[in-house]
């Protein structure tokens, strides 16, 4: 009894350790995560001496992260009121995009993979954005077609797209060295307009 008792303690302890490792590496929680007004970024994944959690995550997933001087990735899953981005709703992205030589705004599923849609539009780049006379641009995200800057969420007749996320890639941007100083006002915000 004594032996099996200790064996059980050992096994449970080891299982605890392994499961903590597994959970920490499988979720989006990992070291160096920064949240700015709902946009999440992991600036420490693009450096040489990163923290052990980020290093383990990169080695396990086989990612080839953007180097710190190359660009930055921001991800968001919620609107400005903290509600999950839903495929049934119409959202408007407005405000400032940080200075970058080129940025792309991509709509993906929660797994990070673009959601198929009939018009094959998955991303908008800073080059193709239509701007008004003041140089300000809004991006509409909706399951139905809209004029100007529109990113579709799946197909209107397929209500299968439950939740989605927005991925903002910025290339050759000066903010990567000063991401700690970034304020929410310097990033675009996203407002829900209506829901089907």
């Amino acid at each position, binding site marked *: 009894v004594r032996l*099996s008792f200790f064996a059980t303690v050992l096994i449970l*302890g080891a299982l605890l350790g392994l499961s903590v490792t597994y959970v920490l590496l499988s979720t989006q929680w990992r070291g160096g995560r920064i949240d700015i007004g709902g946009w999440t970024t992991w600036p420490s994944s693009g450096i040489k001496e990163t923290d052990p959690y980020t290093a383990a995550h*990169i*080695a396990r997933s086989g990612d080839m992260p953007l180097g710190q001087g190359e660009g930055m990735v921001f991800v968001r899953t919620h609107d400005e009121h903290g509600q999950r981005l839903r495929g049934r709703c119409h959202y408007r992205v407005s405000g400032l995009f940080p200075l970058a030589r080129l940025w792309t705004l991509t709509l993906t599923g929660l797994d990070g993979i673009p959601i198929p849609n009939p018009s094959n539009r998955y991303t908008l780049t800073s080059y193709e954005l239509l701007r008004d006379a003041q140089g300000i641009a809004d991006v509409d995200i909706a399951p139905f077609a809209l004029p100007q800057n529109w990113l579709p969420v799946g197909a209107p007749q397929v209500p299968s797209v439950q939740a989605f996320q927005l991925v903002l890639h910025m290339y050759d941007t000066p903010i990567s060295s000063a991401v700690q100083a970034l304020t929410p006002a310097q990033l675009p915000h996203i407002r829900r307009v209506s829901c089907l």
Partner: protein
Amino acid sequence: MLVSQRIFPPLLRKALQCVRSVGQWLALALKNLWNLVRHLSGLAILLGVVLGVIVHLITIFLIPIMSQNSAYHRLMRVSTPYSTVLISSTSPLEDDPYTDPMLVRSACHFDLSQGPVRVSLPISTLIVQSISVHGERGGVHYAVPDRAATNGVLSVMIMSERDQDELALQEDEEATQRDVRLMLPVNHAFVLTRAIAPFLSLKEKAEEAASQLTCTPSPLK
């Protein structure tokens, strides 16, 4: 006698035995668990938690060393050293979520113990391009934007610290001016180039730009 009648009873007996042994095993495990709960002294909990923390830390530090799924290992499986492989949507390497649809990448891996490697990439004015150097374990050692290109070509010389010292002795003025020189603390690494198309119609152009990456071994004389 039907065949089924002859086959089923032994099978059934086997299945019953199996269920019984699993049940016994479960009962034992439950008994142990019960023992654990009954004897649940602070010491046992402490022991379990400490062990858990140790196992967790060990696995976190071992994963980068042991992982066979790191980008370097995946690259090694699909290409030979110094050859450029395009990471397109059809390639087995492209299962990286969060990849930009406008982005095309290509990579080549090398071993610096064989001497320095010269990486060159012609720059296209329409495409945003960059080169990054990644170590075997996933760290990004350097990232060079296309603005560092001279005469339309981004040329980078990657070498080990030993080779850097060697080269400093036989200094060649012309070479220093031509290249961006990068020193790596590890021997096994790969170079990744990114080409980002500003418009979807330029994606083919980006693919062409990315595939023009060349890695040439250039051992010291």
